């Protein structure tokens, strides 16, 4: 032990080692995911990319496995140029996605604001509205898609209930809506949009459960003091919504927009995903994985675009340090 060690040196070293120790602890915490991602998930992703560039060779002798032969861009060329409906399905799928996302966002925000108000039976309504989050996923979606019965049973009530074709029993006929909006001169596009929204209400309600939860969280995190002060200043409910609530939950709008895009293109009911699933059987697994990658890249581009546009309008409340 030497005496001429400076006072600051050990402390510095100790600090550094604490930081290092914490960094190491951080790695230990995320280790399961890192291992899972690198050892299991990444090989799957790489394999999937490789498959999209190759062709299946069925086993010639017994005991041999199915093998894959590299064919370059053939699958992508096939998907984009030869395959009869892929490009059309892709375009219509993207179109419906662009139509659906604002609808789901507006609806879930509206419902969240409504469910956030104090009223009798709020807990019951909340419980009902979140049922689809749990019960209308995966398996039930598959069963409901084959439910020919509900159309028959619901034909007296005439509500779209997820059974697919409901043209004969639409809740609101396009003609009625057009009559209503015709005099308002709001344009054919908007009329179609609203009509479409009402006729797909079941779909929209079912798909906006998680978004509603996220918006509710956002609404509850807004400090009541802000509302109190604007009320004292004499703001109306309308002004309060647009000047306070809307900016304060704009971060949630970003989260929800991204979540909705991801959710809407990963569900089985998505037209493009359905088409890819059918192509898996009809045109070969490698072609379908090429199609899936094309779709994924396009959607990734859309997510980046939407996130870029919305995030430039997002308002972050500066936290007091």
């Amino acid at each position: 032990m030497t005496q001429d060690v400076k006072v600051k040196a050990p402390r510095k070293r100790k600090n550094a080692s604490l930081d290092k120790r914490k960094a190491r602890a951080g790695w230990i915490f995320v280790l399961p995911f890192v291992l899972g991602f690198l050892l299991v998930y990444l090989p799957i992703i790489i394999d999937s990319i490789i498959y999209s560039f190759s062709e299946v060779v069925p086993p010639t002798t017994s005991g041999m496995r199915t093998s894959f032969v590299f064919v370059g861009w053939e699958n992508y060329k096939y998907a984009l140029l030869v395959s009869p409906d892929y490009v059309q399905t892709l375009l219509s799928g993207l179109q419906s996605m662009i139509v659906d996302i604002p609808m789901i966002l507006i609806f879930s925000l509206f419902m969240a604001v409504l469910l956030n108000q104090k009223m009798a039976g709020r807990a019951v309504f909340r419980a009902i509205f979140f049922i689809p989050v749990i019960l209308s996923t995966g398996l039930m979606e598959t069963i409901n898609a084959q439910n020919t019965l509900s159309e028959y049973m619901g034909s007296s009530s005439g509500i779209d209930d997820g059974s697919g074709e409901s043209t004969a029993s639409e809740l609101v006929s396009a003609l009625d809506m057009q009559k209503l909006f015709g005099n308002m001169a709001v344009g054919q596009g908007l009329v179609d949009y609203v009509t479409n929204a009402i006729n797909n209400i079941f779909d929209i309600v079912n798909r906006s459960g998680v978004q509603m939860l996220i918006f509710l969280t956002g609404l509850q995190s807004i400090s009541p003091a802000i509302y109190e002060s604007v009320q004292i200043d004499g703001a109306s409910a309308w002004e309060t919504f647009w000047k306070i609530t809307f900016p304060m939950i704009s971060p949630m709008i970003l989260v929800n927009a991204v979540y909705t895009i991801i959710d809407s293109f990963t569900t089985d009911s998505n037209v493009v995903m359905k088409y890819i699933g059918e192509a898996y059987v009809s045109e070969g697994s490698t072609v379908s994985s090429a199609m899936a990658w094309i779709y994924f890249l396009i959607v990734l581009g859309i997510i980046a675009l939407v996130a870029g546009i919305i995030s430039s309008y997002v308002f972050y409340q500066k936290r007091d340090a």
Partner: protein
Amino acid sequence: MNAQNIDNKPKVQKETKNRIKVEFDRTPLKERLKAKFLSVFFLKKVVWYVFRLVLLVGISYIVLFPFFSQVAGSFMASDDFIDATVRLIPKNFTLDIYKAIWTENHYLESFANTLLLSLVTALIQTFICCLVAYGLAKFKFKGNGIVFLAVIFSLAIPHQTLQLAIVQNFYDFDILGIFHFLNGSGIDLYGFKYTNEALSSIDLIAKSDLFPFKTGGMNLLNSYWPFIIMSLGGIAFKNGLYIFMLRQFFRGVPDELEESAYIDGSGVMRTFFTIILPLSIPMMITVFLFAFSWQWMDDFYTGLFFDTQANLMSNLWRTIPESLKIDYPGQNFYYAAIRNTAGIMIIIPLVIMYLFCQRYLVQGIERSGLTAD
């Protein structure tokens, strides 16, 4: 209010020893009611109340109607489906469909199998996601951002894109080529082939018969292992979302809590297990509920990893019980009703769970303070 009430002195009406009855000049009841109920403010409130109620009840109806119609159909006898007068209320009430699914589609076995699968995966996923999320939320280390991006990537990539590769990888499961190497088949790392001469000369029994070794790797299909492995790695269905939710929650936990624990000499792990985890139990219950019910309702991964004969909830609706198979004009409707009944029997356990736990579901999310930053 009125002119005669201006000098508003209370008049003593009756006086006893203990009590004084005084009469005020109050505004008459009629006037008060008028002022209260005939204002624009009140009208607005009523209109808004009615509008809101109609809207909420209407949308609740839309959410619940499919379940009503499915429940109604499940009690009908086959004749009811060709009877035009029967809509929602069964004429010949019967429990045949339930009984047939209970016995012929092995409901109890499916229930037990799926319960085990969902419980195990949900418990593992909750724990692993907590660990990862805590690491991402509270520690600054090189690569934190990259790991978080990987989490979001794993959430964003649609599983359909990967289905072929997932099946192939778990059919021939291997980590870093270890199993291939041990089995003497050599490692094939994207073009570079390494063989293990010494082992390949020994004829291992394990190669085909005793163990499910097929081509050197392990065939994990038709077992729970793919689910467990994916859960352990935090890459199972929607785990990215759970990690994201928990990360936001942990970021809301004040740092001072851990700092004081560190000062008192508690290690990082001990702090996590004795202070942070007990604190986050409501949030963990939320994640557990999500993981459990999404695994319960999952038919994509169970469809990939199990064949359609496996006794699982996801296969319960696939086959029409033999005793119910009949050929008549209403067959399509009847079979749809049978499938719906299977669907009801699948979700009943979840509904019961939801009734008890739904407050955790909403509260937990509210507590997470999910924000975008």
